[in-house]
């Protein structure tokens, strides 16, 4: 029984299974997904927090305009997760909980 209260795939993915890490957690993804979609499917959509209120950033436009999905990738900051294809072994860091600052 599909859990419709989550982000979910409704068609068989084209690419093979790969793993990547998000804030130290090892997660599964499919080659061909963007990092943003991979994070949402894995249940961890939060990309960081925003001063001054500290509100959580999650992808909003998924097309490179809103810049809410900025994450640190393999040590380099300010990558838009929605434009970045997920690759095997990629190390993604948000700035939540002291990660990736």
């Amino acid at each position: 029984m599909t859990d419709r209260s989550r982000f979910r795939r409704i068609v068989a993915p084209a690419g093979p299974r790969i793993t990547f890490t998000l804030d130290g957690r090892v997660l599964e993804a499919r080659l061909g997904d963007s990092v943003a979609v991979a994070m949402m499917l894995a249940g961890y959509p939060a990309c960081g927090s925003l001063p001054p209120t500290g509100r959580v950033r999650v992808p909003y436009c998924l097309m490179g305009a809103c810049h809410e999905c900025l994450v640190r990738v393999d040590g380099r900051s300010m990558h838009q997760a929605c434009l970045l294809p997920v690759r095997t072994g990629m190390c993604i860091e948000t700035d939540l909980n002291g990660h990736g600052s």
Partner: protein
Amino acid sequence: MRHPGTAADTIVIGGGMVGASIALGLVLRGHRVTVLDEGDRALRAARANFALLWVQSKGAGAPAYFNWSRMAAAAWPDFARQLEAMTGIVLHLSQRGGLTLALSGAEMDHLATRSARIACDQGSDFPHEMLDHSQTRALLPAIGPDVVGALFSPLDGHLNALALFHALHRAFGRSGGHYVPASPVRTITPTKTGTFILDTPHGYRECERVVLAAGLDNTRLAPMVGLHAPITPQRGQIMVTQRLPPFLDYPTNALRQTDNGSVLIGNSQDTVMTRQPVDLEIDAVMADRAIRSFPCLQAASVVRSWSCFRVKSPDGMPVYDHSTLWPGAFVASCHSGVTLAPNHTGLVCDAIHTGIIPPIMQAFSASRFTLTAASRS
């Protein structure tokens, strides 16, 4: 069309850092003040500056300028407190000292020579130190190996200049000042009764006193009231990075970390009046220098870049003058509107109010340019 009923006794032309400071000082001295400002897209040094409170580079060979800047720096803490109390806007003033980094022996020598000159000039009290690499590292742990050393002075600091700009405007408005945007002044015509008539796109305005604080436009306006405000416009470009965790405890002249964590990178100087608002090659050189100064910035992202024209006179010192031909007309021109803000709200307004330029300001009269020219002929 005249504007009856809004007769100001003083009109300040220009609503930038200098104009807003002077307008505030005058309205607090009981003048009825109107500020006439340009539109939203005008060239504005006030929105584009580096937000430094800087004395250490001022007035080599010109002790009057050093002293003028030193006086302003000393007045800043009280000035900030008063402005914050009047407006509720926090200025984030930090005045623990500032550094100029040297990335070569030649740069160190230049800094040492210039500082010695300021210190030796009569009447100057210039606390400063030349630091070697490890001494610089003690203050700025993130410096790279290319940094040979630095000039440090405890007089210097930085603040949030946009907050200052906002605060000056808010204080002016709350104190009864009248701000008119989108109202550039085409001409100023002195009358026989001692008043001035200003021609603007929205009609004529008459006033008893007029203060020219229009930045680059002062050069055009000054002769209309028997004044002279020569300006050599100098373009400066700035980049700002994403917000970063705090790592810079002191500002440098070319790189500082703001109160919200972003890093400002600047201090370019060119005189090309290019159509391009941002020259990517200049950004490239500044980026390279920033990385050599602080290698951790290599991976930091620039989120914006902009440029503006510094309102610089031929010798870099301010121009303050009261017209002898048409008393009541004043000009105020400088490229350090942030550092000098307390003086502009203070002594400069006293001078405008009384019509008497005090000795400390007399070195800034534009007659110094014509005298030099005359002595050459």
